């Protein structure tokens, strides 16, 4: 596999921090997630699926952003824990963290300290505002970043109060940027032997995905428009139309005269009609049809249409079934479980990736096998609470 032989020391947690390590794991790297029971990964917290007691092993979201990883539960703020990590990093190619800036430094495990042990280390530090700048201490959720970066200002119904993007987009967005930068740095390390410390700010990653608005504001002045379901100009029309049934919709994009003609022929109306007239006719046509059916008929006529789908629509749909978008897995604690597969297909195939780890599942592997510590030493680390 692509990253066979690459080992990752992964302090990443919650969502944005967990995904870069998972991406490297998808590509064949061995990823060791460093966890502590003193402060559980937020994704391990929630209501249980089996029984009534809180259980860090029963969180599907955790299972979806930590697939294929190993877990080492260690109190890395203790002296013995820190030593263990410093020893472990010599066996690792990559480190990932998304604590608040300075946290790892204060634990004696910052980039400089780690790179002393492993000079060609490639490390990703990901945080809301980045490692430098007045907002480096910013406490942020994805929604905080969406507001700060201007992402929110583009969403909503034209001419109304803003609504924000109402999703965690800045998390997966920053983590994908982080994974991309890690791969580039691994590529260079393979060529040159040089390590790297990469600083990704979620705020800047958010700004990068409103790049055209940034350029437009500076070159043209004025605020970029809130277009809602409309377009930025050029298209004949684009719309989100009601279909048969409750809360059922289809989106349609008519690029130009060619698309208008296709839609008009499908509906049996005058192809020379105005875009408004054709859109009007189409919205009547959609009311009598199921949203997926409307999409498929329009697509068969060569028109870009997309059913607005909910989680159930997609899960049961033959297209996603056939591409294996969701994988059925067995989890030792909760049993049958669906997870996402990786976002690429290689010659139509997907990689073989294991499940997310139980807490501390790989303590023995890491300490005994990888670091070659004795059984007595291992037992001592467990007794003293260094390994949890």
């Amino acid at each position, binding site marked *: 596999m692509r990253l066979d032989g690459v080992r990752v020391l992964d302090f990443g947690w919650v969502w944005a921090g967990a995904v870069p390590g998972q991406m490297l794991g998808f590509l064949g790297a061995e990823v060791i997630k460093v966890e502590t029971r003193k402060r559980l990964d937020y994704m391990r917290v929630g209501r249980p699926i089996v029984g009534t007691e809180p259980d860090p092993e029963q969180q599907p979201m955790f299972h979806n952003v930590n697939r294929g990883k190993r877990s080492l539960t260690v109190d890395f703020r203790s002296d013995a824990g820190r030593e263990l990590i410093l020893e472990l990093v010599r066996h690792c190619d990559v480190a990932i963290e998304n604590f608040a800036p300075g946290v790892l430094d204060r634990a004696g495990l910052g980039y400089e300290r780690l790179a002393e042990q492993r000079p060609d280390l490639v490390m990703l530090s990901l945080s809301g505002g980045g490692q430098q700048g007045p907002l480096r201490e910013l406490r942020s959720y994805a929604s905080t970043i969406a507001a700060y970066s201007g992402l929110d200002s583009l969403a909503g119904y034209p001419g109304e*109060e803003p609504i924000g993007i109402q999703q965690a*987009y800045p998390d997966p967005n920053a983590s994908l940027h982080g994974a991309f930068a890690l791969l*580039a740095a691994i590529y260079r390390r393979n060529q040159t032997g*040089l390590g790297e410390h990469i600083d990704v700010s979620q705020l800047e990653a958010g700004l990068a995905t409103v790049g055209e608005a940034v350029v437009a504001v500076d070159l043209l002045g004025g605020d970029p428009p809130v277009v809602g379901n409309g377009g930025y100009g050029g298209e004949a029309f684009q719309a989100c139309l009601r279909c048969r049934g409750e809360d059922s919709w289809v989106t349609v994009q008519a690029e130009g005269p060619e698309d208008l003609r296709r839609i008009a022929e499908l509906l049996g109306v005058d192809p020379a009609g105005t875009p408004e007239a054709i859109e009007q006719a189409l919205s009547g046509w959609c009311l009598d049809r199921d949203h997926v059916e409307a999409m498929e008929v329009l697509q068969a006529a060569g028109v*870009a249409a997309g059913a*607005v789908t909910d989680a159930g629509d997609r899960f049961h749909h033959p297209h996603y079934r056939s591409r294996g978008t969701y994988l059925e897995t067995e989890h030792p604690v909760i049993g049958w479980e669906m997870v996402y597969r990786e976002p690429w297909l*290689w010659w139509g195939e997907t990689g073989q990736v294991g499940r997310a780890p139980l807490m501390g599942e790989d303590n023995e592997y890491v300490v005994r096998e990888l670091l070659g510590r004795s059984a007595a030493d291992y037992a001592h680390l467990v007794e003293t609470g260094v390994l949890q």
Partner: protein
Amino acid sequence: MLGDVQVLEVSGQVSAAFAGKLLAGFGAEVVKLERYPAGDPTRDPDGPDPALFLFLNTGKRAVTANLAHPDGRELLYRLLPCFDVLLVDTTGLAEEHGVEHSPELPVERLPEQFPRLVVVATSPFGATGPYHGFAGSEHTIFHAGGEGYLLGAGLLHEQFPDRPPVGAGGHLAGYQTGLTAATGALAALLDRDHTGRGQFVDVSAQDAQLSLNHLPVMRFFDGVLETTASRGFTFGGVMPCADGYVEVLPLEEHQWQDLVGLMGNPQWAADERFATGRDRARHGREVNQHLREWMRTRKRDQLAAIGQTSACPIAPYYDVDEAMATPHARERGSFQRIDHPRAGPGSYPRMPFRLGTGGEPIDERPAPGLGEHTTEIYGSYLGMSAAEIDGLRSRGAL
């Protein structure tokens, strides 16, 4: 970082162009091959190139070829062995170039002919499955990916239950697909170092979108189908203040306590109906009424400053120009000036990576003009003389 990587990009949408921009930003040589004579559809044929094109194509060089012309296709075949990566946002190259009656170049077969070539193809629904080949745009892909279904949720949905779901603006689906394609390209290059062989990487914009959509899917597997009526944090969110809006989300207990302290411990907050997080969620609408009342008389930047010093996340709701003007962005150098020969000088987001040891990512070159590097690239890559290139031009092949 990617100084020895050669990328050929044939794109008509945001996704492959953004992937090319990312690779160019880390130093790869990215050559954008545009259809002749119209050029990339995100250009404006009648005026200066729009901001979207200027942003997506920094750091690239540009050539044209007419793939409807046999000599134009021949050019493409001669170029391919010179490149490590082909980025393309369709599964058929000829079709992408608006050619209805010419043979397709099926991109998934290209690595068979060019064994070291990595082909990364983005498409609305992927290269396989019943929807393979379906058309898509930012608008339709965003909504089909599930997040559109849920946008316009919560209070807004209560006020206007009959309105359609709404788009998020910008090109979020395109950017996510491009990022996924760029990581796929690098992964395949790393693989090639082991195997000596390229491969075909299939990136579905839907799959890229769906990976943003984890939470609703997890809840669905848990037996709860999220809708616009049920979606959303039960309190907090975007709130009007005296001179704008703020985003407030006091999810954790200590954040809530901090916020209550900031508000001067009002009496309402001591009500037992708001005692725990669960209680507050149950009475979310009332909590929000109180919060909105308090925010309404205060200034946005004052609230934001409080948000930076307290545990409670309060964020100013910035327009794009305000997001560009922060001291934080200035100090980090989040933006760079790029002088485009036709559009003039302007601010562009810098690649969102700061590097500790290897210098900054490179992306200062402005987006290229249509065919700006045709003579240079065909000369240096294919060893063609100016006369040969002129000959092709006169035959309409480029």
